[in-house]
């Protein structure tokens, strides 16, 4: 039975979504940051080479005979050779006067003597990195400032950055895939804990209201705690109502016995057939009520004992033969042959009183519904599992009632005028289930019913 539950989303999906989303964001951040860092480093490298080239040109500056000489070495430009064959531009100025190189190369606004200035500009249709430096030479006519700009296109840099970007992208995707796998696994493990709790609660028998004993993660403690409390309260109120029923049955049975005794006594004295008939009906009603009360007490007893099951060795053969002996007189009243067939030792660990109660109810039912001068057989089978069958030649069960007959106070429709409370099969089933077995009701192909207890 699953009651309707309102559902909003899924914890597992939400968890997986948050974690994979986070991983995606982190992967993108990783890509952006690593790419920015490496491009910074690559740019730094280019700047260093430009700076070295620049200083080698500046170092070659000298004033000879009042003339500025700038005999810069071949290496100044050859060190700027790259695998991508980057273009190289330069410009040399003396006190703002263009001396040689590329006159249209952009120069910085403010010149610094102490260290080179770097900038990126678009020159000759290509982005170029420009390093500009200056040096002061003292001539006879005063100081002269020599400034040199050296520029290089960024093809090799772009080529390297593309390579790095590709690698970093692969790294980012790999990170994302691994993080996603981890996220899915984490989500699965988390929801698995919930599933395990659900399974353990679902698998319980209908009578099992004991607290959840399996260890659970700390986050689930409040849930399991309130579940346990709820079940304890439920158990308590169930016990209370069972107690109340048992108490009520007990209270009713005693006055009923008195009433029956009075009715019997009165029957002896009454001559009028009409009155006798009325008294017979009364006695019969009292018997039914008294039996119901007894069954109620039995049921309460079975429920209690099932919860606190006693574990002793019980010989079912012995227990049954004793029962048969005891029920023989009842059978003989209807001329029914009550027989017991055993195969071998039938030992079981359990509560003899419960088992006896269950079997007595089954035999009682068989005797009640079997026709006079028929046979009721009790068979004990040990193979493949221990099974006790009670067979009669009665009308059998109605096909549509087999499933519901073991319910409380449920009685077959064609029970006629037979006395019954509707608790017999319920008791038999509860007692069997307490021993880990189950009750099955089938109709025999040759007619009659077969009630079996399988352990």
């Amino acid at each position, binding site marked *: 039975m699953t009651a309707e539950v309102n559902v909003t989303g899924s914890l597992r999906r939400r968890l997986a979504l948050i974690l994979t989303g986070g991983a995606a964001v982190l992967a993108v951040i990783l890509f952006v940051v690593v790419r920015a860092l490496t491009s910074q480093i690559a740019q730094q490298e280019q700047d260093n080479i430009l700076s070295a080239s620049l200083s080698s040109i500046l170092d070659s500056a000298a004033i000879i005979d009042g003339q*500025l*000489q*700038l*005999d*810069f*070495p*071949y*290496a*100044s*430009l*050859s060190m*700027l*050779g790259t*695998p*991508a*064959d*980057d*273009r*190289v*531009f330069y410009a*040399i100025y003396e006190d703002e006067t263009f*001396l*040689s*190189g590329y006159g249209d190369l952009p120069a910085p606004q403010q010149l610094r003597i102490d260290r080179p200035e770097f900038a990126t500009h678009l020159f*000759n*249709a*290509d982005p170029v990195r420009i390093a500009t430096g200056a040096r002061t030479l003292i001539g006879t006519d005063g100081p002269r400032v020599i400034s040199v700009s050296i520029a290089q296109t960024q093809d090799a840099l772009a080529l390297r950055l593309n390579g790095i970007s590709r690698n970093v992208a692969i790294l980012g995707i790999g990170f994302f895939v691994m993080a996603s796998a981890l996220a899915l696994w984490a989500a699965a493990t988390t929801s698995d804990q919930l599933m395990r709790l659900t399974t353990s609660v679902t698998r319980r028998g209908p009578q099992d209201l004991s607290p959840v004993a399996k260890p659970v993660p700390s986050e689930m403690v409040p849930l399991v705690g309130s579940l346990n409390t709820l079940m304890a309260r439920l158990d308590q109120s169930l016990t209370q109502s069972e107690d109340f029923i048992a108490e009520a049955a007990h209270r009713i049975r005693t006055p009923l016995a008195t009433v029956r005794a009075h009715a019997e006594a009165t029957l002896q004295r009454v001559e009028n057939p009409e009155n006798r008939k009325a008294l017979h009906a009364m006695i019969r009603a009292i018997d039914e009520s008294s039996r119901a009360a007894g069954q109620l007490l039995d049921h309460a007893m079975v429920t209690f004992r099932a919860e606190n099951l006693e574990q002793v060795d019980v010989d079912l053969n012995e227990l049954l033969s004793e029962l048969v002996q005891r029920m023989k007189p009842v059978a003989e009243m209807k001329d029914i042959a009550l027989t017991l067939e055993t195969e071998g030792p039938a030992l079981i660990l359990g509560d003899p009183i419960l088992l006896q109660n269950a079997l007595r109810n089954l035999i009682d039912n068989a005797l009640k519904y079997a026709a006079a001068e028929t046979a009721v057989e009790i068979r004990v089978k040990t193979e493949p599992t221990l099974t006790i069958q009670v067979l009669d030649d009665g009308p059998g069960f109605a096909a549509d009632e087999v499933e519901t007959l073991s319910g409380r106070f449920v009685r077959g429709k064609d029970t006629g005028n037979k006395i019954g409370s509707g608790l017999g099969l319920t008791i038999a089933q509860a007692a069997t289930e307490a021993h880990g077995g189950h009750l099955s009701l089938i109709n025999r192909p040759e007619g009659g019913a077969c009630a079996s207890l399988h352990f």
Partner: protein
Amino acid sequence: MRILAFLILLAAPVGSIAQIWEDRQVFGPEGAAETLRIISSTDTSFFAPIISDYITTYPDTAVEYLVTSTAELDAAFRSSPAQYDVVISSAMDLQLKLANDGFAARLSDIDHPDWAQWRESLFAFTSEPAAIVVNTSALGALPVPNTRQELIELMRAHPDTFAGKIGTYDVRQSGLGYLFATQDARASETFWRLMEVMGSMDAQLYCCSGEMIRDLRSGQLLVAYNVLGSYALAQAQTVSDDGQTLAVILPSEFPTTMMRTALVSQQTAQLQSAANFVTHLIALQSAGDPANFPLPPLSAAPETAGQTTISLNPALMTYLDALKRGTFIKEWENAILQGE
């Protein structure tokens, strides 16, 4: 007086509309769909087979082949880059500067070794050493010099024999001569001593290899320094009518090797045909069949081991710097123009 003449020549506006070509030839069919204008510093005789082969492959293209000196070529192309489709020059420094300044189109489809190209826009297709060429007939009993040092010693020992009979490039006029001189100066101090000695011998200065070889054959020159090996070898193999024989010597201590390069103008209107031409040129170079590629191909480079091939690198622009050039030319003039 000579300096003044040179200065006037340098100052004269080059690349004007009325360009004076050393040679101008048109190959291919009349009224072809496209006419490639190739501006080159290489003599037509070397390129005629290459162009013929190209036209056989692409029959609806005509080729106009224009020859001028490297320096003039550079100036002409810079002043009107849209007028020319392909630029071929032996002055690697000027060519590299053209590519660096964005005059060359990038041709990414051409499969060429890394060391023989720059920025997928400048492609080397020959490998040619600078040689010392000696007229052995005129030298008589004197030993043939194998290194610069030996040449210096020979000249010092026989100043009267060599006076006025030594030729080399005028580096102020010839782009290739300037390239060879600067690379020599970069490699060794011997270069300056050689220039000093040549200067004291009243060296003759030339604009081009062809004229130097012509004067060698006529006996006007005994020795020419830094002549293009390819031109010299072509001449040396054919013994001249007057019985003069030439010896081509690759200086064994540090031979300077130049690579002829080609580029396609960034502003060409016929990019596909121009690219086809360069691709074809490189393919012919790889095949190396002297019948249709009479220049020394790149693949021949390893045979003359020990050569220092000038590499395609932005450093080539170093000596093109106005300050550097000024300093170098001044030093060179001091060394070689002692008599004036």
